[in-house]
Every structure is written in structure tokens, then in C-alpha cells.
């Protein structure tokens, strides 16, 4: 009696988890969505970059690599690359530095979920709302934060200053993201055994030494992912620039070309200048850049290995 009962499930087991016959109803909706809105559009975006597509006429001809050749001599493209790189640099530097500081302070002092919730709040607020709030706070006549900064001798035109606009947007997005980034790092800190710090303290190590010798090395996998996410996100800044520099009669990407980051330029080419082909060529360049950066960053920081293992 016992043998058949035991063998029946085993014989059936291959079918239990089996086959496309069972899987396809589960996969169908997501597969339709993936094909329609991710996979085919990606191929089509690459195809568009080899055409001179006109969105208004909705037609275009194959032009080979002309769009790519024109990029090399396009001063606005190189301007966009420069502006984006400057923004990415500033944003990563300030965001990561503040986030590490906050995460370490929280790790030592409190596990309060109220504080953790509060510092996450800005990350959940729409970029458009954040941009508008800071347009007002940093208004050079009436803004209270602009006023506060002027007490400390900092005078600036913020969003309206050609040299100030990118650091200002980086500052605003640091405000929006540093709490969330700190929570990611905080989660990573929880995986470091406390005994290491106790041993360090017994050996007379200073806070700074423990930070350098214990915290940073063991945090490396988390830091690598945070850097990748921050960098990919920073290259894609759009909403804040569009609203903060395009509001009140301004032109998105202004003043002048000072904040025309790569995303804004891609958008402008497609929808303002009606050159979808050239726009797509830059999007291809952006995609390749992000892939290369991600690959090397994960490789360099050896993200998948932990020194704890």
C-alpha cells in the first residue's frame, strides 16, 4: 500500500511544475506588455535613429548613419553631454556623501521608524511639485531659503543663473533623494556584525578608522548598487529641469543652454524641433553609455562579492 502512494507523486512530479501548457496563461499578460511597450519599441527606437523621421508628417526615410555623423559636429549635443556630466558629478557626490553620513548617524543612534519614514517622504513627492516648491523657496526676491542663504553671504540667481542652475538642481534633487539613499545604505549597515566594531573599539580604533577599515569595505556591495542607481537616475533628470527652467515664461534647458541636459535635448529634438531621427540617435548613445557605465561600475566595485563571505 505504501509503495504506490509514494511513487505516484514522484511519477507525477515532472508534470506538477511543468511545461508551457501550465505556464502560458500566467505569462501572457506580462508578455504582451513587455513585447508591445518594451521590446518592440526598443528595436523601433534603434531603427528610428537611422531615419530622418518627421513626427508631424509621420513619415521618414532611411538615411544610414547620417544622424550619428551629425552628432559629432553638433555643438548642442556636446553641450548636453557636458551639462549632464557636470550634473551627474555634483549630484552623486553630494547625495552619496550626505546619505552615508545620515545612515551612519542613524545606525549609531536610533532605529526609529518615524525618523526613517520622515526622511523618505521627499522621495515620494512628484518631481514637478518639488521643482515648484523650490522655485518659490529660492526666488531671489521673496524666497525664504534664498534669504536665509544671503545671511551667510551666499547670493545667487539659482534657477535663473547660468552658472548656478545646475548646482541648484543638483541641490534640489539631493534634498529629494538623500533620505531614500540613506535608507538603502542603512539597510546595508544592518548586515555588518556589531562584534567587529566591539573588537575595533577594544583595540583602540578611532571612529574614523572604524569607518575606513570596517564600514566602507563591508558596505561595498551596497555602495556599488547605490552608485549605479544614482548615476543612472542622474543621467535621466528631466522633470525638474523642464518645470524649474521652463516655468514663468522661461525656456526649458535655460537660461541659454545652461541646463539643457541630455534628456531635455532628446525631448526637445523630438517634440520641439521635430527631428525624431536625430533624437533617437542620441537616445541610443545614452542607452549604450548607461550600459557601459553600469557594467564597469559593478565590475570595478566587485558588487557581487562581499568581504563578509
Amino acid at each position: 500500500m505504501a509503495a504506490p502512494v509514494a511513487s505516484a507523486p514522484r511519477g507525477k512530479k515532472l508534470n506538477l511544475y511543468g511545461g508551457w501548457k501550465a505556464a502560458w496563461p500566467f505569462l501572457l499578460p506580462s508578455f504582451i506588455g513587455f513585447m508591445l511597450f518594451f521590446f518592440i519599441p526598443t528595436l523601433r527606437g534603434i531603427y528610428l535613429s537611422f531615419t530622418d523621421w518627421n513626427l508631424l508628417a509621420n513619415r521618414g526615410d532611411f538615411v544610414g548613419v547620417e544622424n550619428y555623423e551629425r552628432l559629432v559636429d553638433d555643438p548642442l549635443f556636446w553641450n548636453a553631454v557636458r551639462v549632464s556630466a557636470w550634473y551627474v558629478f555634483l549630484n552623486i557626490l553630494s547625495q552619496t556623501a550626505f546619505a552615508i553620513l545620515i545612515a551612519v548617524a542613524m545606525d549609531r543612534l536610533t532605529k526609529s521608524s518615524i525618523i526613517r519614514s520622515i526622511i523618505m517622504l521627499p522621495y515620494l513627492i512628484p518631481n514637478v511639485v518639488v521643482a515648484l516648491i523650490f522655485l518659490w523657496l529660492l526666488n531671489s526676491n521673496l524666497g525664504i531659503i534664498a534669504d536665509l542663504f544671503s545671511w551667510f553671504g551666499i547670493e545667487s540667481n539659482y534657477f535663473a543663473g547660468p552658472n548656478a542652475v545646475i548646482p541648484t538642481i543638483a541641490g534640489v534633487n539631493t534634498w529629494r533623494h538623500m533620505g531614500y539613499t540613506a535608507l538603502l545604505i542603512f539597510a546595508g549597515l544592518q548586515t555588518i556584525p556589531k562584534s567587529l566594531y566591539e573588537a575595533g573599539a577594544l583595540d583602540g580604533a578611532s571612529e574614523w578608522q572604524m569607518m575606513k577599515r570596517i564600514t566602507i569595505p563591508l558596505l561595498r556591495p551596497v555602495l556599488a548598487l547605490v552608485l549605479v542607481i544614482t548615476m543612472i537616475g542622474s543621467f535621466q533628470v528631466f522633470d525638474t529641469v523642464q518645470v524649474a527652467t521652463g516655468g514663468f515664461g522661461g525656456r526649458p534647458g535655460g537660461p541659454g543652454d545652461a541646463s539643457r541636459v541630455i534628456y531635455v535635448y532628446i525631448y526637445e529634438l523630438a517634440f520641439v524641433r521635430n527631428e525624431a531621427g536625430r533624437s533617437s540617435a542620441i537616445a541610443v548613445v545614452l542607452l549604450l553609455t548607461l550600459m557601459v557605465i553600469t557594467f564597469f561600475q559593478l565590475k570595478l566595485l566587485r558588487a557581487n562579492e562581499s568581504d563578509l563571505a
Partner: protein
Amino acid sequence: MSSALEGMAGGATRSVKARMGRGAAWALLALLVIVTIFPFYWTLRTGLVSNASLFEGNQGKGVIERVLPDDPTAVNFRRVLGQATEAEILEATGRTNSASFNYLTALKNSVIIAGAIAVGQTVFSALAAYAFSRLQFKGRDALFFLYLTGMMIPPIFVLVPNLFLILGDFWFFDFTGESLNWIPGYESDGLFLLGTLPGVIAPFFFMTPFAVFFLRQFFLGINRSLEEAALIDGASHFRIFRSVILPIARPQMITLGILTYITAWNEFLWPLVTVGRFPEKQPLTVALGVFTTQQPGTQPDWSGLMSGTLLAALPVIIIFMIFGKRLVDSIQFSGIK
């Protein structure tokens, strides 16, 4: 001085130093909370006073005196909600017909868009996650990897191609123009889904690679012994999904749903492109963005703008107040979004 005294002094300095360190760290956290909250408070404060008071009240006052609203009024919020009289609008803005956006319409659109996306994406991604975590079929890992590569595609890369889809142009198969006229009741405007809410919802409705990944990770951790017993008893996989997996995974699915809802609520670029020229269909983010570009460069209606801004963020703030802890905990779980 003897070495013993030196030792004691050293110990005392160390503990004073440690206490000062803790004090500094607490001060840092307190400052952080203030820096986080203050912009929201100031937005509220600005919405509660008249424009005139913003312009006059500035001179000769310090930061501290400006912190509390003088002569608070709700008229700006009533203006945004469409409840103010013409006389009140004239008094508040100095214009009889000030540019405005219809808050309640935009709110309704945002609720529909974010709600549909959150429900569709969570349910369909959960189905896919079940297949990827529980079923065995040929090419499973390759397909999952293909889904994951979708995470690397910047949204702007597929912006124009997706706009084509919304216009009914499926590349090799064209729905544009009159090709749909055979459907009863369909009146072709040549625009297909452009300027409609389904057009805004569609690309995010069926899945995102992140949602599938997030749920698969969680499903993998659920013990299989329960389902094996049910499968041997002849239960179908849909039955298992509904009666075994869903009850266990409900908290994670709700968390994902909330995250998806907020992400959809905050989306700007896609709705700008699809409904940016259709005021009746704009979600709050786009309505607010368009409203801003229509403001005059000199003397904009700051108190009206800040009231609208706060009201646009209010639903997210309410969700945050209810579910904040759950969202924070999800970061511990998933590690990374």
C-alpha cells in the same frame, strides 16, 4: 603629573568626546528632519496668505518673524478647488480671468491613472512572477533575463516608439486613420488612444520588469511543501496561486501596489506627451507643469500656485502617513528599488 592621573584624564576626555559625538549626531538628525519638513510647511504657509502680503510683508522683516502666516486665509485653496467667487479671484490675483487649472478634474484623472496602473501591474506581474518562481518550462531563465534587460532601457528611449503605438501605428501593422471604423461606435479622429486615459495607462498596465523581479524574489522564499500537497491532490496552478501564494504574499503585493501607485502618480514625461494638449485628461503633475509655464514671469500668483502644489502632493502625503512604515520596511526587504 603621574601616569595614573594621565590615564584618568584620558578616560574622561574619551567619554566627553563620545558624548559630544553622539550630541553632534543627534543634532545632525534633528537638522535633517527640519530640512525635510520645512519646505512643505513653507508651501502651506504661502498658500494661507494673500499675494499682497507676500510682496509687502517682506521688507524689514527677519526670517523668524516671517515663519508664521499673518492674517491667514483659505481663499487660495478655495480658488484651486474652484469654490471662490469672481470678486475673490480678482482681489487675490489682480486679474479677472487668471490662468488656472481644474484641480478636481486633474485629481480624478490622477486617481484613475494611478489606480488602474497599480492594480493591473501588480496582478499581471504577480502572475508572471508565479510562472518564473514556481513553474518549469523551456526557456524560462532566458525569458526572465530578457525581462530584466528591460530595466536598463531609459524611458525616453521608448518614448517616441510608444507614442506611435498610442497613435495606432504598430510599425508593420497600422491602426491609424479609418482602419478601425468597422468597430461599432468607433469614430476615427485619427488619434487612436492619444489624449485618452487608456493611452496614459497602457504602457505601465501589464508589467514593469521591476515589479516581476520584486515579486519573484519574494515568491522564491515561500515554502513549497504546502503547494506540493495541494498539487498532488489535483489542484490547478491557478488554484494554488489564489489560495496558497496570494494569502501569504498579500503584504508584499500591497506594498508593491502602493509603490506602483506613487510612481504612476508622479509620472510626468509620458502623460505630458500623450495628454499634454488635452486639459480635460491631464493628471495633476502635467496640469501643474502646464499651469506653471502659463504663469507670467513677473509677479506670478505664488499663493495660488503653492496651494495647488500642496494639494497636488496631498494624496501622496496621506498615503505616506498611512503606509510610511510599510514602505520603509520594504526597503529592508528588497534592498534596492
